[in-house]
């Protein structure tokens, strides 16, 4: 098994007729993900990806016609919150929103409504997820992965690739890699993804990639301390040298009032039994040190 996506994934790409949507849909399809439909309002009836995928006007139609259970959103920021709600209302259980630049306050009611509908939202402004050898949803390059049993969760994009590549290079494969996104308001937190990994019988070790700002890593560490006690765990925190009061990146992390520092996160993770790496390349060794033999 894996979490969020796998062989049972039946994916609809929202915004499949756009430049980005089409490009990444192709890559997902090439990876082996079952793309059962696309959706772009007004383009219903067309076929996308070299005539292999039907396009629908609405998500309710897409779900009705294809039995889709997962969606991946590439629509522009102004329309993305609505696209998430449309997917949830249509009964999609797992929604990935790749779109960046969504105003944070738009996401407040959306996240609450998606939860109330019982769906899981990953993102926005996230790279998606890959369950190596099974399915890839989003924009993480498929080539960096290797099948295995380490669950990876990260709020960065390219830093995740760096860490995953380092693991793959060291012969350590992944069950699922999840990028939760770096926006202020996101659908699923570190903690929530760790809970999914904890329930997944195939995930035998955890890698957490965090950043300065907020307290989500600390929150996840506190939960992992008791709920993932026997599981090999390694982590990396970016931003040890970041100055206070400066926002690192567009929507990004900021240390303010002495809270959200790398030091606080590293301490919390170490206290919870994570081996904390000084560089992403050290993650494989830390997993081995923690007893991981996968």
């Amino acid at each position, binding site marked *: 098994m894996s979490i969020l996506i796998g062989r049972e994934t039946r994916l609809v790409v929202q915004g499949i007729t756009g430049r980005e949507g089409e490009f990444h849909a192709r890559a997902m399809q090439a990876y082996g993900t079952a793309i059962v439909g696309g959706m772009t309002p007004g383009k219903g009836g067309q076929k996308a990806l070299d005539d292999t995928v039907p396009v629908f006007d609405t998500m309710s139609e897409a779900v009705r016609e294809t039995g889709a259970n997962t969606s991946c959103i590439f629509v522009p920021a102004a329309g993305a919150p609505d696209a998430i709600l449309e997917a949830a209302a249509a009964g999609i259980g797992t929604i990935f929103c790749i779109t960046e630049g969504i105003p944070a306050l738009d996401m407040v009611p959306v996240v609450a409504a998606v939860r109330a509908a019982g769906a899981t939202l990953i993102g926005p402004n996230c790279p998606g997820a890959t369950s190596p050898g099974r399915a890839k949803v989003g924009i993480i390059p498929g080539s960096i992965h290797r099948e295995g049993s380490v669950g990876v969760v990260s709020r960065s994009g390219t830093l995740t690739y760096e860490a995953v590549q380092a693991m793959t290079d060291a012969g350590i494969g992944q069950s699922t890699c999840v990028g939760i996104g770096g926006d202020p308001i996101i659908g699923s937190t570190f903690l929530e993804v760790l809970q999914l990994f904890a329930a997944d019988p195939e995930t035998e070790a955890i890698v957490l990639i965090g950043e300065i700002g907020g307290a989500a890593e600390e929150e996840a560490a506190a939960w992992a301390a008791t709920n993932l006690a026997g599981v090999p765990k390694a982590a990396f925190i970016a931003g040890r040298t970041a100055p206070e009061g400066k926002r690192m990146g*567009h929507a990004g992390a900021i240390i303010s009032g002495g809270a959200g520092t790398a030091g606080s996160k590293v301490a919390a993770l170490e206290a919870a039994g994570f081996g904390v790496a000084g560089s992403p390349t050290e993650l494989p060794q830390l997993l081995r040190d923690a007893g991981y033999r996968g």
Partner: protein
Amino acid sequence: MKIQEADAKKLLLAQGLPVPPWEVARSPAEARAAASRLLHGAGHARQVVIKAQVLVGGRGKAGGVRLAATDDEAEHVADDILGMSIKGIAVRKVLVAPAADIVRELYLAAVLDRAARRILLMGSAEGGVEIEQVAATNPDAIVRIHADPLLGLRDWQARELAFRLGLNAHLKATVGIAKGLVRTMLANDADLVEINPLAIVREGAGAGEERLVCLDAKITLDDSALFRHQDHEALRDPDEEAPADAEARRHDISFIHLDGTIGCMVNGAGLAMTTMDLVKRAGGEPANFLDIGGGAKAERVAAAMRLILAEPRVEAILVNIFGGITRGDEVALGLIEARKQQSRDVPMVVRIVGTNAAEAARLLEEAHFETAASLDEAAEKAVAAARAQGQAA
């Protein structure tokens, strides 16, 4: 994006919040005229307060907030403040307002609470000081109320806030202000709307009537939402933005100036911070944080290079690209083009992996760039190059 106090007050007024009158002056003469209107006009202020308009905090401690009782004094004080520089920012404007007769100072803010994924009202009975300080010394003094994510901030929640802040005598006013802060936040897509102090002031002559007013205002706008607030671009203060920052913004580059010698160009904020961390770990000091974002093309790469080289301290450049959406060959072409235009010769270490990395490697090799395979190696090489450059200079 932070905006100036006077602009923040305008946004509050637009939502019907009680903000005492003010004027903005750009010269001692303007400040004198403004003070004169306030001291001798209908309001009959006994004193005026003159406040430096800068986006950095701590202006009070720096002497940027002072009182004046006469036109002469106002002109003199304004002259002083307009000559100041606070945390490196020259004061170019002052705000002139009637000095309030303050009975009690509180703190009230609406902030986006990332952890709770809701809007949070934070109130403190201790106003006039920084909330972080209260949080550290007297955490129980802070009242926290989350607005419902679907229903918004309801009256009963605002009343709860009022009672817990001991504002029973100003129940209606507190409800109005609390709801107004949330309205201001939503109407403007603000991350933060902070009133510090929110004050009970005595108005009119003698004992006067007590009223709750917003004496200061700080608003931070969500940059992601600027596309739907065309009027907000005018609130950006050109006086406070370094030319490099404006240039970075134009090219959609995320750039922060630091004090080291190794310029960094990276795609992705997390990887950019990691790159800085590894430079430091290898014994160097990063000269900047720079995220060229996703899918950067040659033109943006060249702009990033100009931003880095504009800092004379830079002695080496480290380029670290993990291609995903970004294509490695596009970045390589941009680097080659940028080096041609480059005004001074700074050693550069380039690492490009991921999408189209092989093509990039070929291009970089042909152009005789120094490359690195791993990020650790790249950081070490860049630090060594900077050292060599520093010693040569």
